[in-house]
């Protein structure tokens, strides 16, 4: 038997988390975000132990419910749940009653009846986790919905940035690619702006939002540009987004070749970024399209760290929602 000191993470924040669900980062306050960051630090410490597992959520049940394919998000949540001692059940749309036409609401109610404490939902429709959250008392965590939000990715991205840069206030973060259809870009925008970063959204005119930058941000700021070579100057972080080949088929870009010429993150372009700038990518990468292979695996790349940090951040979120909730 492990003793009590060994079965809980050290230095977990004592202040409370109040929300049942984590659906996006847009309603999170700076304090909420920092609570996740502090909790994730404690979880990272657990992950560094020889015995990388604690019993904080022993007896709790976590269900991953994925309507879209995923490698890293699903595996990351599964490892996070198991590292906290929870039972983790994985459900995919193709191997479940979803394929028989069961509605999302009925599926969620069924999983609650089975005893799920938390549901991690990945869905191809924007807003689906909101629908799910309204129909269950279990905690719902948005594991990516359509072209809307991916809050745990944004939080792990922030955690990774903070480990290298410290406070992100005043830092320039360039997010480049298909911003318009990117749930990663949207959720990152809210966390980064809340913490005072300067966010530049960059891509071809057909793939950048027209109105998001116009919002009145209290602390940070956001701008939109189609000129990547200008945007990358002095950047502290360059985050490349996955370029889906169907965007060319639908006429949103004339060719991948033209896209690569204008927007690929290359070592040559990176020379104009700030010294020590980080290169990030939410994965899965199309090497040779949005990111040059030598950059993807180069010294400035923190892509694998993002994946590793994802486990700690998701442990923190599971802990806060299931065990750390007050009021």
């Amino acid at each position, binding site marked *: 038997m492990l003793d009590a000191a060994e079965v809980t993470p050290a230095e977990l924040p004592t202040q409370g988390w109040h929300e049942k669900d984590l659906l996006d980062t847009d309603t999170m306050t700076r304090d909420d975000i920092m609570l996740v960051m502090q909790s994730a630090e404690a979880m990272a410490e657990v992950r560094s132990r020889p015995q990388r597992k604690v019993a904080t959520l022993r007896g709790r049940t976590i269900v991953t419910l994925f309507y879209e394919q995923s490698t890293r998000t699903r595996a990351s949540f599964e490892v996070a749940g198991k590292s906290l001692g929870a039972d983790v059940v994985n459900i995919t749309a193709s191997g479940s009653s979803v394929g028989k036409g069961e509605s999302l609401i009925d599926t969620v109610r069924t999983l609650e009846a089975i005893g799920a404490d938390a549901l991690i939902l990945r869905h191809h429709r924007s*807003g689906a986790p909101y*629908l799910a959250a309204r129909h269950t008392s279990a905690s719902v965590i948005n594991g990516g919905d359509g072209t809307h939000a991916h809050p745990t990715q944004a939080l792990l991205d922030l955690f990774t940035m903070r480990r290298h840069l410290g406070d992100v206030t005043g830092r320039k973060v360039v997010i480049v690619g298909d911003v318009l259809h990117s749930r990663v870009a949207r959720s990152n925008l809210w966390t980064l702006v809340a913490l005072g970063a300067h966010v530049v959204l960059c891509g071809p005119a057909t793939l950048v939002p027209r109105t*998001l930058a116009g919002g009145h941000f209290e602390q940070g700021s956001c701008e939109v540009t189609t000129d990547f070579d200008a945007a990358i100057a002095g950047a502290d972080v360059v985050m490349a987004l996955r370029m889906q080949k169907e965007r060319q088929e639908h006429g949103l870009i004339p060719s991948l070749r033209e896209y690569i010429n204008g927007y690929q993150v290359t070592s040559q372009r990176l020379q104009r970024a700030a010294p020590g700038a980080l290169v990030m990518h939410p994965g899965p990468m199309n090497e040779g399209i949005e990111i040059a292979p030598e950059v993807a695996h180069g010294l400035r790349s923190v892509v694998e760290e993002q994946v590793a940090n994802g486990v700690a951040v998701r442990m923190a979120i599971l802990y806060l929602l299931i065990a750390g909730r007050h009021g």
Partner: protein
Amino acid sequence: MSERILLRGAQVFEPGDGLSDRPLDVLMADGVVAEVGVGLTGDNAHVIDAAGCIAAPGFVDLHTHLREPGFEQKGTIATETLAALRGGFTTVCAMPNTEPAPDSAPVVESLLERIARDARVRVLPIGCVTRGRAGKSLAELSELAAAGCVAFSDDGNPVADARLMRHALELTGALGLPLSEHSDDPVLNAGGSMNEGRVSERLGLPGQPGAAEIAAIARNIALCEATGGRLHIAHISTARGVELIAEAKSRGLPVTCEVTPSHLLLTEDAVAGDGAEPLYDTNARVNPPLRTEADRRALLRGLEAGVIDAIATDHAPHAIEDKECEFDDAAPGISVLDTALGTLLLLVERGELQLETVLRRLTAGPAQAFNLDARMPGVGTLRRGVAGDVVLFDGAARWTVEVARMHSKGKNTPLLGRELVGDVAAVILGGSLVFERGQVHA
């Protein structure tokens, strides 16, 4: 019909005269308006105390989805015409998106049999422009007209092929009947589920740009001018669309248009809701989508200016499962008949519309747009000796929209929980009292 009804002491709206400045009595006899005046005597009449109420011609809706035949889980002729009656509408034009669709005379004849059996108000069928509403080949338009169709439309399917639309306008123009067109570019809109703009970008929902409606209206006006056909633009939603129609009318083109109460009250923000967390309210999904505040204000102005001829409900009842799902999977459409008057009088209370404008665009406006007077003399008016359809409503009553208060089978409205203004007190149809507060007369 020997029934005599006396409405005593109502403020009376007659489109020719406007709203009366003092209480009047309205006497119905022999199925028509017999007399409007002061101190009428109601010998042997059923007297209704109408003090504090407004009497107007029964409302005319140019755009109703009754769902029958084919989609009875959403609504039936019986349920939806009851909702119409309780909402003050005595005439509704039934859109042809049924299964089968009324694209041939036998289907219309069968529909008219069902209407004769089940309808609680007058129902006028709208025939298809193309076979099966598929946009490939024209329906037999003259036979549809002969069978009783008052207008033509492919409803939610715009006639995308400009050549086919041209010929449709030539043929319907020769018949003297309007073609009601959902003016939209389906390619530009493909996959969209709400207005493209600030809210769609925030919610990550695929957008329907206003340009899709504007471009289609411009095309349809050009085809109207080329053919002389009577073009009716269904449920206009954009500010620029209103300008295009104003310009077409100023040149004397036979163009009319309608707007829905939903687009007059709500904007794209209804999809996200009022809270910090987005609602993704599927009940606010409608086609054309709820637009911006600038568009809404232009629609209000267009209605006041007479550019917009009619308020039409686009009443679209849906079953629960059509709406309790992911936003992009939800069926577009709002159930409106129960809430139309309440919505419009709320806008009057807010000072955004004139009461007379509302009443005119619910009565004479639509009747003239579809030239219904030729078929039903006096419809949309309280002219003596002709029209026998009257709605009496309390313009000050306040009520909260609840599922239990809706007569439509479709409870799909983004107004659930909202307080509206104005309640129908009585409805007279063809001179017969068919509804009086608290009871529906068989």
